[in-house]
């Protein structure tokens, strides 16, 4: 690599950690046996990394590979970049009405 400055910056970045709160509902809460968890992540992590972490938990086989997600109560994509303290809700298929 010929860009040591960038590498150094990225290395420092990876050491920073942040915590987000993950909310689970309905069938997903039943499957994982909990409705909330605090998840430590590297700074700058995205929604996709939350989903990757969840997929390794017991019971996660019941979750689809790409569930609906809301960040701070608004629907968000897998690329959405998270900040410390964000509330990340994993939304099962909705069935209101």
């Amino acid at each position, binding site marked *: 690599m010929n860009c040591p400055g960038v590498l150094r910056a990225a290395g420092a970045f990876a050491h920073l950690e942040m915590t987000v709160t993950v909310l689970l509902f309905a*069938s997903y809460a039943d499957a994982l046996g909990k409705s909330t968890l605090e998840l430590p992540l590297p700074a700058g992590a995205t929604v996709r990394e939350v989903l990757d972490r969840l997929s390794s938990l017991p019971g996660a086989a019941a979750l689809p590979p790409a569930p609906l997600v809301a960040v701070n109560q*608004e629907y968000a994509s897998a690329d959405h970049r998270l900040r410390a303290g964000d509330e990340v809700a994993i939304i099962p298929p*909705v*069935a*209101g009405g």
Partner: protein
Amino acid sequence: MRTAIVERALDPCAILAEVERSANGAALLFVGTVRETNDRRAVTGIDYSAYVPMAERELAAIVAETSDRFGTADIVVEHRVGTLGLGEASVVIAAAHPHRAPAFEACRFVIEELKRRLPVWKREHYADGTREWIDPTRASAPAETRP
């Protein structure tokens, strides 16, 4: 406009009264109720749960969009959560407009958007004692019998 997620019984007549004004020539009332069968199974009740703070925001956003789209601010929606018995109202939508066509369309738009995006879930109780979360994306019944 007014929207709410509530834990008490809904009062459709009171909600309809909120949209009645002499400028309106049409007032529509939609009442969604717990049906005794789903997918050919005998249903005895439904638990409704919600991501309440998001559902409140999303319901308010749906009604604001409906108001812009159909040109009326006379829309009131309440969605109930908790355990409901057969025939009980889970959602009530009242929409009024000077003319009937936009009133019908506004009412329809609210219920369809709500079913598409409101973070609310239901777990049906069946006559055989079992309970199941409903996943409308996996409905096995013909469309006309879906919830």
